């Protein structure tokens, strides 16, 4: 019992938690932007797959790591463009389009992988982002290693939360974006194109999702595997609800989920086969569902979420 408790005070546990949280943070921010503008983006799982592959492939073909991040973001934005075109001006069902994008993006990625690397059995490795301890700050006990000796991409994730929050609440653009998700008629009546706002949001959000995927191949691991996203996208959709569509709360949710995940791995090792390991694997999900139930009771979702807007319709 005591040992199980002591895990919570080890630096390695928190380092792992923050590392696991990083891709979730990127993708959750991406989904949050889309939903705040009124578009549910269920393409997230596929777009993360594309990002993971595109970033890794860029580096494997000799590109710089940061170029890899940029290529991942760009490919995410392209799938966002497709998703947005279908759901915003054409006003198709966001559920159907989202699932379709996920299937398309995932399959296209695997197909491309086989085209590029037809012969390999084990995927080639790249040199990923290395931890970059921040002087002084990383010396703080517990917090230091957890937050300040991570890879640059993790730092970028936290910066992204700040930027998203700033844009949403402190800029004219964020105002238009939030209004588009609440009452698009209000946006149109002030002379702003709802279509432009929503398209922009979906593209930017999808780019962030793809960077979240790229984190897995370029920072957490050093290679690309099939099924490596493994439901993380769906978790991010739940995290947006958990965070009541607010960046700060969603960040807390992502870290919490990641901490559960890191914890269960360590508990597995501790109990050493006495308890079936599947029980531990289940834990983060059970706890997230429980947290969702508690947290989302009062959540006020964007009122125009999933409702297509057509100008000039009676």
């Amino acid at each position: 019992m005591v040992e199980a408790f002591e895990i919570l005070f080890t630096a390695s546990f928190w380092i792992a938690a923050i590392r696991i949280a990083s891709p979730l943070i990127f993708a959750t921010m991406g989904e949050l932007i889309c939903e705040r503008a009124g578009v549910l983006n269920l393409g997230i799982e596929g777009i993360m797959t594309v990002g993971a592959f595109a970033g890794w492939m860029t580096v494997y073909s000799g590109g710089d790591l940061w170029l890899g991040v940029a290529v991942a973001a760009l490919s995410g934005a392209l799938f966002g463009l497709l998703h947005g075109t279908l759901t915003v001006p054409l006003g198709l069902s966001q559920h159907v389009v989202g699932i379709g994008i996920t299937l398309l993006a995932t399959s296209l990625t695997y197909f491309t992988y086989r085209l590029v690397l037809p012969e390999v059995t084990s995927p080639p490795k790249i040199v990923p982002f290395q931890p970059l301890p921040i002087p002084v700050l990383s010396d703080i006990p517990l917090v230091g290693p957890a937050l300040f000796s991570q890879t640059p991409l993790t730092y970028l994730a936290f910066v992204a939360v700040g930027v998203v929050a700033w844009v949403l609440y402190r800029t004219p653009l964020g105002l238009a974006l939030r209004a588009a998700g609440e009452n698009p008629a209000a946006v149109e009546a002030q002379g702003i194109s709802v279509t432009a706002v929503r398209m922009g949001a979906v593209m930017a959000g999808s780019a962030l999702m793809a960077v979240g995927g790229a984190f897995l191949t370029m920072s957490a691991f050093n290679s690309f595997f099939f099924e490596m996203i493994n439901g993380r996208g769906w978790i991010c959709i739940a995290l947006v609800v958990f965070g009541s569509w607010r960046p700060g709360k969603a960040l807390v949710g992502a870290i919490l989920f990641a901490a559960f995940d890191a914890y269960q791995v360590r508990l597995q090792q501790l109990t050493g086969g006495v308890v079936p390991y599947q029980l531990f694997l289940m834990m983060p999900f059970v706890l997230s569902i429980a947290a969702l139930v508690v947290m989302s009771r009062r959540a006020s979702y964007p009122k125009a979420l999933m409702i297509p807007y057509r100008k000039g319709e009676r």
Partner: protein
Amino acid sequence: MTSSTAPVLRISGVTKRFGPLVANDSISFELMPGEVIALLGENGAGKTTLMNILFGHYVADGGEVEAFGAKLPPGDLRAALDAGIGMVHQHFTLADNMTVMDNIALGTQSAWSWRLDRARARSRIRQLAQDFGLAVDPDRTVSALSVGERQRVEILKALYRDAKILILDEPTAVLTPLETEALFRTLKMLVAKGLSVIFISHKLGEVMAVSDRVLVLRAGRLSGERATRQTTRQELAALMVGQEVAAPPVPPVERGAPLLTLENVSTAPGPGGSALRGVSLTLHAGVITGLAGVSGNGQAALAALLAGTAAPASGRLLVGGEAAADWSPRAALAHGIARIPEDRHAVGSIADMSVTENVIAERYRSPPFSRNGFLDWKAARAFAQQLIRDYDVKCPSPETRIRLLSGGNMQKLILGRALDPDPVVILANQPTRGLDVGAVAYVHGRLLEARARGAAILLISEDLDEILALSDEVLVMFKGRLSSPSQRGERSIRELGALMAGHGLEEAADAA
């Protein structure tokens, strides 16, 4: 600046069609600086459509709009805003989750600036609010505002953009009398500062009170133009409806058998106003029972009870002298209770389904619409066509989605659906809210016909004039309790007003 003789706005030959429906038929007029034009017309006459074209929300099929001498590109909202046109829509265009200030500032700053200038916005809004008597706190969230306050925010939105022309679409429809007076004061101030106003309404009294000139629209055409000082309500009403409207005569009818009785009924508390507390009430054949009261005092609970969507928590409900078991909407219908719901959009109709589907909504399970478990569309369509003809509904075809109908026409259809099976009890909840003169007279006439036929009618209305014009017996509801009944002409408006405010009923309510 334009000279005072040049029009600020010129509309020439504007035409707009929705499918086979011609909403605007080559309409032309001019708006002069500092002038208040009233655009008068029945529901569905094309007023809102015309303004939406002017504001760039719809693209016209023909004609053009000129503001301050420059042609406005069609369908370009931004251009209309930049030209100084501001519009206060009937359904407000506000984001509820944002503050007043954010709603007003939306779209007024370059989208790419890195920071919203809230301090500047706040001080400007305060200044405008003070100048025009539009008191509202810029830092409050819109969802916490009253309807009147929201409207002020909408007007501030236009003023914040330096609008020179303000269009108000049915601005008083949602306001209390006091708020309406305040709005009229604001309009006077706006005009004094040189703004021009287009005021859309179907209420003659308001039009006479605020406008300099009246344009009357009928069935998409401009049917007349009058200087307000040189016209009368009667003349305008005639232009609007196409004929003189007279109050329907109410012939005396013998009080018949009791058809529906409530004995000391209380209901469980629910959302939307008071629950019923020990209500006893009898509806007789051939009698219109008027229920007056400020909304939220239990009318909704009573309507739900009669419609079958709620059951008594205690007390008895008797239909035709027998206690009703398993009270449900289906049971209510089976007992011959017809409902004209308060909210025709949310409850009375299914917006995206056709007229045909809507009119059989209460009877699709029984012949002739259902045969061996299958719908008989031929019979359904024939029924829809019959209602469209008999109830004078203006709609292109039975296949039209009901949302495309104007409020008055939708109400006529709902009225037809309720009255066609010759119901024994009719629940008419706010049957004429938001309707124009012609449609109101029509609904009243039909209700009186049903009364002459021997139906028992419960008329719930906030409009005392309506209650007094139609009811044989008047009751007042306050905090879920009923006053004693009074016969036609027994209580004056003043006495009813006092009852509505709770005098005489309050003690009883508090004692419980």
